[in-house]
């Protein structure tokens, strides 16, 4: 620490000492006016029995930055004013104090911050680099399956919390995921999370696909549709249609559901299949539908 820095520290202590005697003053050296200067001169005369001129205060105490250190005798007076025997004792004490409460320079803080940011960036990149993107396709048509028809979750997750197919996060190199859809057979697959991209081919459930297509159809070919529905739907079929906000369920049997699909209506177009189950004869025995 330079002598000027010691002097800046001494100036702070002078201001503090002044504030003890004149507590209503809440300013700094910049706002230290002629009245305050007069008060300070009187205080120094009273406490230290020394004279300090108004000009000296303006020249050395009020400026924020000093070009040079004042005369030693004046430094002694100021040091005595704040409770030291002289300038030398003040400097000695100040050096010891600064050593205890050393503050790091600003550039060091900035450098540490920059290092932290860089470390954080590399860790983030590393984590992202280990996430894979999964593309799900129909095994036969090779077309991408609509993401709203598919649910992906970690195979060991009993709660089956869905994860986005665009990013399979993992802290390990491989993740076993399960892919489910009302229209495709369930598939479990190991995805290498550091490989960037993974392609999963799903085998369609043909009968479920037919029902989905029929729900989108118009009245054309209604008789063919009726025959096909009779063939693919189990006699024990249960269809659950969820009401708005899942506040209730309407239950239809095979005859009622077939009627709906044979002659499609506006309300049918708003429905989405969320679950399909086949029986041991591969006929559709259960359908769950939600309304959009």
């Amino acid at each position, binding site marked *: 620490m330079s002598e000027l820095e010691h002097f800046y520290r001494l100036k702070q202590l002078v201001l503090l000492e002044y504030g003890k005697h004149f507590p209503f003053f809440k300013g700094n050296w910049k706002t230290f006016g002629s009245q305050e200067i007069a008060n300070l001169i009187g205080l120094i005369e009273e406490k230290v029995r020394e004279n300090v001129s108004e000009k000296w205060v303006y020249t050395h105490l009020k400026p924020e930055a000093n070009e040079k250190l004042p005369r030693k005798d004046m430094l002694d007076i100021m040091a005595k004013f704040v409770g030291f025997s002289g300038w030398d004792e003040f400097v000695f004490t100040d050096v010891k104090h600064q050593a205890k409460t050393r503050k790091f320079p600003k550039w060091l803080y900035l450098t540490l911050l920059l290092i932290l940011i860089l470390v954080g960036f590399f860790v983030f990149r590393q984590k992202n680099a280990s996430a894979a993107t999964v593309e799900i396709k129909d095994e036969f048509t090779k077309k991408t399956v609509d993401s709203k028809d598919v649910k992906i979750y970690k195979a060991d997750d009993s709660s089956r919390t869905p994860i986005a197919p665009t990013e399979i996060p993992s802290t390990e190199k491989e993740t076993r995921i399960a892919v489910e859809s009302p229209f495709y057979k369930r598939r479990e697959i190991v995805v290498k999370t550091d490989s960037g991209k993974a392609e999963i081919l799903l085998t369609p459930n043909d009968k479920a696909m037919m029902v989905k297509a029929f729900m989108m159809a118009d009245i054309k070919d209604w008789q063919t549709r009726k025959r096909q529905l009779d063939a693919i739907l189990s006699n*024990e079929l249960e269809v659950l249609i969820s009401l*708005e906000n899942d506040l209730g369920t309407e*239950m239809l*049997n*095979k005859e009622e559901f077939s009627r709906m699909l044979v002659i499609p209506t506006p309300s049918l177009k708003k429905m989405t299949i969320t679950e399909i189950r086949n029986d041991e004869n591969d006929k559709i025995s259960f359908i769950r539908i939600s309304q959009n």
Partner: protein
Amino acid sequence: MKTTRSVLSGLARISFLVAAFLAFGSAFSQQSSSRDNSLKANFSSAAIVAWQERSAEKITDFYAYLNLLSQESNKELKAQISQNIEALFASENVSVLDFFGSDKKTNLATLLQTVSGSKTRFDVSGKISYDNLSGNSWTVSYSLEVLRNGAKTVIPIVQTIRLSPSRKSFGNSDKVVWQQVLGEMK
């Protein structure tokens, strides 16, 4: 003397058992028949609203079918459409409005015959509101636009909807489910 007494005692015991059985059976059947199947006893207000909105969809489906029936000429398709319409209602004898006739009221079966091939367009317009919720029914109020031979008529309709438990067959088994049907129109 002893034999007579024991016979009488036995008879008294049997009579008591029979009487107790009959009383129990009566109480049980009273309990079963008094189970509350009303909508308010079985559904929350929000659930009833959901069912009411479903009934509005069935009404829209009814008029969609009616539009198909009025445009279609294929006999088999018309029969299928009529079957679909009748399945929406409690029965083909339900009292409905005669949209073309002067006496205003008819039954569903007659309405379908009148509409079939008539080249009429039916559209539900305006706001749909639900009122008169009681027991197992409510009413739906809506306006129906009828376009025929270039002339448009707007008919205000109040239609009853019924929602009640009903036994339904699912192949070899059957279950009691809540069944919603369209009812009479005013």
